Each structure stands twice: as structure tokens, then as C-alpha cells.
């Protein structure tokens, strides 16, 4: 149900993020080029790149664990920095997002409307900016690499993620 609820929301129609009074992004992992959702969406569309959308929370323990034990991996860093456009949303932020339909809501309202229950939650988008799958909670280096390969090698065009992962 959560997955389907998420896909009801036209995430890909997010076109503009405007910061209210300059609130800082709340701690995406260091060494990665995480952008605001606006910048990331625009960049991914213009460069026809897949996008990783990371829903985090300031002080989230599992996020911190992933930053220290997963995102510190050099190969993962190269793969995601080079081949993906990276977006970060703070699920408790009051920063506002403008949707293509004209509505403006805070990042927190966007996260709750997207039925994001825990952090970290990762949404992977195809180069065509279609949401492909959602992963919540701790992900290993191997899993993150496989998610990346599934998209970059375009396996999503021919098989479900589960089938791809089982074959690895």
C-alpha cells in the first residue's frame, strides 16, 4: 500500500525548490554531490540521467550509520556521483517545494504526503524520471551497488528488481 501511495504522487513533477530563510540542508553524506530536489530534477531532466532521491532526517541514526559504513565506499561514491543525479529531502524541514501543478508545500509535508514513514528512504528514478523502486532502512554497499547497476545497465527495462537481485 505504501509503495502504491507513493507512486500516486507525481514526484517527477517537482520542479522548483525555494528555501525559506536559508535553512541548511540537513546532513546528506559528505563527498557526494547531493542537490536540492529542484536542482536535481532539473539537472536529471536536462542530462537524461537517473536520479537517486534520499529522504533523510537530521540526526537519523540509520542515516548516520549508512554515511559512515556505506556511503564512505569509494566505488559507490564514484558510481553515484558520476552516473546519478542526487537529491536530498529533509523530512522534518520547513523548506518549501513548488510542484508543477502550482502547489507549494514544505519538505516535511511532501515527505508525509509521499507516505515516507522512516528514514533513510531512497527512491530510484530512471533517466526518463520515472520512479522505479523505493528502499527504506539500512542498505549495504553491495545492495546499493546492485541498485545502481540495475538502473545503469537498464535491467529495469526487462525484469523486476527482485529478479535481478536474485541473479546476482
Amino acid at each position: 500500500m505504501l509503495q502504491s501511495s507513493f507512486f500516486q504522487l507525481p514526484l517527477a513533477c517537482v520542479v522548483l525548490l525555494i528555501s525559506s530563510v536559508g535553512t541548511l540542508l540537513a546532513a546528506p553524506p559528505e563527498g557526494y554531490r547531493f542537490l536540492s530536489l529542484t536542482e536535481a530534477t532539473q539537472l536529471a531532466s536536462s542530462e537524461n540521467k537517473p536520479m537517486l532521491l534520499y529522504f533523510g532526517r537530521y540526526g537519523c541514526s540509520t542515516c548516520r550509520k549508512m554515511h559512515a559504513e556505506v556511503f564512505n565506499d569509494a566505488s559507490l561514491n564514484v558510481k553515484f556521483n558520476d552516473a546519478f543525479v542526487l537529491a536530498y529531502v529533509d523530512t522534518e524541514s520547513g523548506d518549501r517545494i513548488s510542484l508543477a501543478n502550482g502547489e507549494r508545500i514544505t519538505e516535511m509535508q511532501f515527505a508525509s504526503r509521499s507516505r515516507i514513514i522512516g528514514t533513510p528512504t531512497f527512491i530510484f528514478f530512471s533517466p526518463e524520471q520515472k520512479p522505479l523502486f523505493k528502499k527504506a532502512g539500512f542498505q549495504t554497499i553491495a545492495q546499493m551497488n546492485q541498485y545502481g547497476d540495475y538502473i545503469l545497465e537498464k535491467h529495469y527495462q526487462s525484469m523486476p528488481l527482485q529478479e535481478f537481485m536474485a541473479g546476482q
Partner: protein
Amino acid sequence: MKLRFAGLWLVLIVCQSQASDRWVFDDRTAVTGAAQDRVYHHLDGSGRKHIAVTRQSVAAVWEDNRSQTPQIYVALKSFSSDRFTAPLQVSNGSEAYEPSIAALSDNRFALAFEQDASVFARILTAEGLGAPTRLSQHAASHVSITSLNDQVFASWRERDSGRWFLKVAALRVEGTNRFIVESVQSVEPEGQETALLFPAIAVNAAGLCVAWEDRRAGHTRLLVSHNADMSKPFNAPQSLNEFFSNRNEYDMGNGVTRVSLASFGEDEILAAWMDKRRGGNGYGIFAALGADAGENFGPNEKVHGEQGDRQPHYNPATAGNQAGDFVVAWDDFRRADSDIWISAYNADLEWSQDHAPSVASGRGEQSHPSIALDEQGNLHLLWIERSQQDGPSRLWYSPGRPRKP
């Protein structure tokens, strides 16, 4: 045999539900016109104070984009009328957000809102709006307003020279419809390097209480401060949420966010907020009751009932009155679509079973409640309705009458 037990279980559930059904709600009244394509109403902001009542009327304040840009609007309904007035536009800048409202004497209301990175206050009377008064000096947002016997106080966050400050202003009503800023002080004069978010404010005979989201500890905690005399500094901040899990080297505590405050009784404060201490179940609604205008808070209490234990809950709003009543409302999607839920203390002084008023539940998305209690114990409920999550919206109002024993 199974059927007999099933029937007994159903009876028990119904009895529990009725026990918590403390208010009987009237038919809903439209605050805004029929939902229009690409027009979105929002009830959002520090403390979720978007509805207030005087002896004569109820007022609702919100943000919507009917003019293509987000602006603030207010509408009034006399208790002798069956409909709200046409909305009055409160803001006049490029964009405005997150309004707050409190009742004044003589059927007037105090409004506060963010406009173009400043915060303003103005007075609404039956004749219209008074001139706006700017409260902030630097980039500001997250304003909330409260009143007691026409003493009006507003809180907001302000950023100056790279530091975050929580500001509290004492406002005096000049004539019938204009605010004069009597004083402004920072809750902590030195400010913080880390963000301060969504301060809520409440006032009663024992003084002021301010509670906010604070990130100085490396994760978000709710802090609270009290002031019995605005000519003196605020008390040193204390922790409001009291659960810090510290499960491993990365864990500094669970998420907490969007605290709402309401005064009740002579000098007590209700605080309610979203709290992730339940781990993978998302936010729960937790609360604490504070004596002496929040100088001393009691233990944290879980508000939602067992039937909501495995679901996330959002957008808590609080209300109280001087008669001593207090109540919490929120929304969640335990029944697939979002509904409004209410809980108040029962006769055993425990939070009641969750109650979903029929006027604000069922088909479609009912969310983002704001509530006010009058001195007769009537619960005034304002909420947003959408046919689907990202569809156009409409605001509704319903008064809940106390159920007679």
C-alpha cells in the same frame, strides 16, 4: 461459538468508541468555496493555530494560491449565521505563509503570518483588517500568536549574522485595530549556530511558554522555556521530549517535530508533538502537561490509542480552555485515506480511545486539523479536504458540542 465471541468483541469496540466520543459534531460548514482546479489550501505553521473563537464568532485563517501566489486569507462566521463571510486577503506581498490566529475582546482577532521573509501581525475586527505591523528585523519565519485578556504575544525565528534566534514580542492593542510592539526579546540572547524551528507559544495567568525544535544536540530535540515576566529573561531551556534511545554509536535520539501548545485551566499548558520513539511505525502523537505556564512539565504521555499503535500520525493540534478542558487532534491514514482523529482525557484521566468525527472522516483525504475550545467546552474543528492527495482542496468547519452524560 466463534460468531458469539465476534459479536461480543464488536460490542466492546462500539462501547469503547462511544466512551471516547466526547463531542457531537454539527454538519460541516464550508469555509471556502467549492474546490477549484490548481487552488490549494494549506493549514500549516508553528503550533497549528488557524482557528479561534470569541463569544460572538469563529474565525479561520489559512494560505492558498487563488491569486496565483501563496497569500493569507481569513474568514469569519458569526454564531448567529450559517455561513462564513467571503475571505479577506490578509497578506499583500509576493508570497505569504503559515498564519496564526488568537481571539481578542470585542469580537476581534489577532493574526500573524510570514510574508516575504518577514513576520507581521494585524488585527481583524467585524469591520475589517487593521494595518499590519512588522515584528521581525531580519529574515524571519515560523510565527505563532497567542493572547490572554488582550495581552498578545508572538513568537518566531529570526536569522541574524548567521545565527538563529527565537524572538518573542509583547504586543499592545492601540485603539481598536492596530498593534504596537511593546518589547521584543530573544529566548536565548546568544542565539544558536544550528537551526531552531517552529516555535509554538501559549500564555496564561502564570506566564508564557515557548516550545520549539532544536538541533544543537546533533539531532532534533524539543526544548521549552518559560517566562513569568516579559521584563525579565526567559528561563534556561529544558527538554520537553524525554526519550533518547542511544542504541548504538550513531543513535543520538529519535525524531521529534511540530510541537503545538495550548493553555488550559488557570495556569496549565498542554504540549503535543510528533515523536518517532516507536521506531519503524513512524511518528506517534505524544504529549506532556505543564504546570505554572510550562515551568514544570510532567512525564511524556502517548496520546493515540492502541488501534493507532502501528500507524504513523501527523499534524497534531492542541486546544484548551480556562474551564480546564484540553484536547489533541491529528490526522493519519490508518483507514487508507487520511482522516481527522481526536483524543482527550477520559474519566480515568487517561487519553481516550481515538475518535474520528464522522464529519471529518471517510471518503477522500481529511487532514491538517486546527482546533479551538470555547469556555462552554465546544470544540471548533477546521480541516482540509481533498478528493485525492494532490488534488484541489477545500476548507471545512464543524463545531462539536459536548455530549451530555
